[in-house]
């Protein structure tokens, strides 16, 4: 009985109108929470002392690490949505992974850019083909490919199914890519690059880092909900316009 209730609730959510109402009520709270977390996180980030070795540049970490973590979480969200698209034909799942792709690309870009900014004083160059950076870069290219695929197709539901397949193939491939990139990297250069997160991380850095990680996560969900609402509205506008075209011949 409880199970069937859960299923009803779940399929209620599949109704875009219900989703729009619910998300409309949640969004302000989520937005406020994100703002508070960011305020706290940024305050903490700038009041902690700089690292004796890296100086002030260590503060980049508070943006870089959460962004990198989100770049991966976003792909997981997309993979879950892709399963929703392919297995349950859930219309919101289509919208979900389409809306998440640009967000994932943006967070990955932030991770890459901050990593590069941090690397310049550390390594003396903007970019090294370090295994970790390179993997993130490959992820970035995958995001861009998905966006391009979604843009290139007219029919949104067909585009959703096709890109869901690509997302899942990519998801399965990520460990392989990661492994081979590390293999490639160690093959060519002995691991001498400074790792951002050492095994021991001072609690002084850890607390702001965690707060920032939460702030970024909530930011992602806020933006994701907003993007999903936009996408639903966009599709409704499209449907209305097609309807207008049909009505025009009927009148005459």
């Amino acid at each position, binding site marked *: 009985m409880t199970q069937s209730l859960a299923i009803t609730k779940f399929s209620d959510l599949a109704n875009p109108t219900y989703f729009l109402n619910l998300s409309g009520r949640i969004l302000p709270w989520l937005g406020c929470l994100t703002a508070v977390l960011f305020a706290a996180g940024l305050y903490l980030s700038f009041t902690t002392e700089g690292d004796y070795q890296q100086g002030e540049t260590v503060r980049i970490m508070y943006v870089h690490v959460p962004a990198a973590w989100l770049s991966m979480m976003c792909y997981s969200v997309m993979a879950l949505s892709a399963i929703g698209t392919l297995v349950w034909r859930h219309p919101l799942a289509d919208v979900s992974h389409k809306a998440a792709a640009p967000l994932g690309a943006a967070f990955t870009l932030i991770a890459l850019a901050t990593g*590069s900014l941090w690397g310049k004083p550390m390594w003396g*160059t*903007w*970019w*090294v*083909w*370090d295994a970790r950076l*390179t993997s993130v*870069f*490959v992820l970035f*290219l995958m995001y*861009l*490919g998905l*966006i*391009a695929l979604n*843009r*290139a*197709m*007219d029919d949104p539901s067909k585009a959703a199914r096709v890109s869901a397949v690509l997302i899942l193939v990519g998801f399965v491939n990520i460990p392989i890519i990661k492994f081979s*990139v590390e293999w*490639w*990297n160690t*093959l*060519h*250069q002995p691991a001498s690059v400074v790792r951002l997160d050492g095994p021991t991380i001072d609690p002084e850095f850890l607390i702001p880092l965690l707060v920032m990680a939460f702030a970024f996560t909530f930011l992602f969900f806020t933006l994701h909900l907003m993007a999903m609402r936009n996408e639903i509205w966009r599709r409704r506008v499209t449907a209305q316009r097609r309807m207008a075209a049909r009505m025009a011949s009927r009148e005459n």
Partner: protein
Amino acid sequence: MMSLLLRDLKLSVRAGGGALIGVLFFMTVVAVIPFGVGPDLNLLSRIGPAIVWIGALLAALLGLDRLFQTERDDGSLDLILMQEHPLVLTVLVKCVAHWVANSLPLVVASPLLGLFMNMSEVAIGAVAVTLLVGTPALTFIGAVGAAVAVSLPRGGLLVSILVLPLAIPVLIFGVSASYAAVEDPAPFMPPFLILLAITMFFAVLGPLGAALALRNASD
């Protein structure tokens, strides 16, 4: 003519337009090179200008087959051919629109890839400038290939095969000008000016050839 330019630019940014895909292809091609040659920064910075140029060459050719093909598919090409505007001018405008939509983003993206290749600031600037001057020549040469292959159902690969040999001079002078900017003894200006001359030459020859081919290809 202005309306043709605007229409082509609009089409390239609307859904299904190829502008984004060209840049993405460029980035991907250049980014996989280090996986082949290894992450040695010195080596990468040495071969960087050549890699970026080859990547841009391939990416510029990528969308060229669609230059006239889409027009033919929906019948617009017939109407364009019938007008009293000089066809050469129409082709030139289409080339310019195609260059702005597809090749200019490559020029803009090239400094970023220069960073990935660990190139020096001077080298990055030189590559961007030579690409800015050289890529129009690729589009103009490519227009001839696109016009010749317009009626073929699978012209895309053929266009690349037809155009690549013709584009070799552009590559030679583009890359040598880029290197001349970094390596001291070689002067930058001579290869750069030759590149400029090649571009201006093909700005005339390309549309002429393409117009001639289009007139003869209609069926």
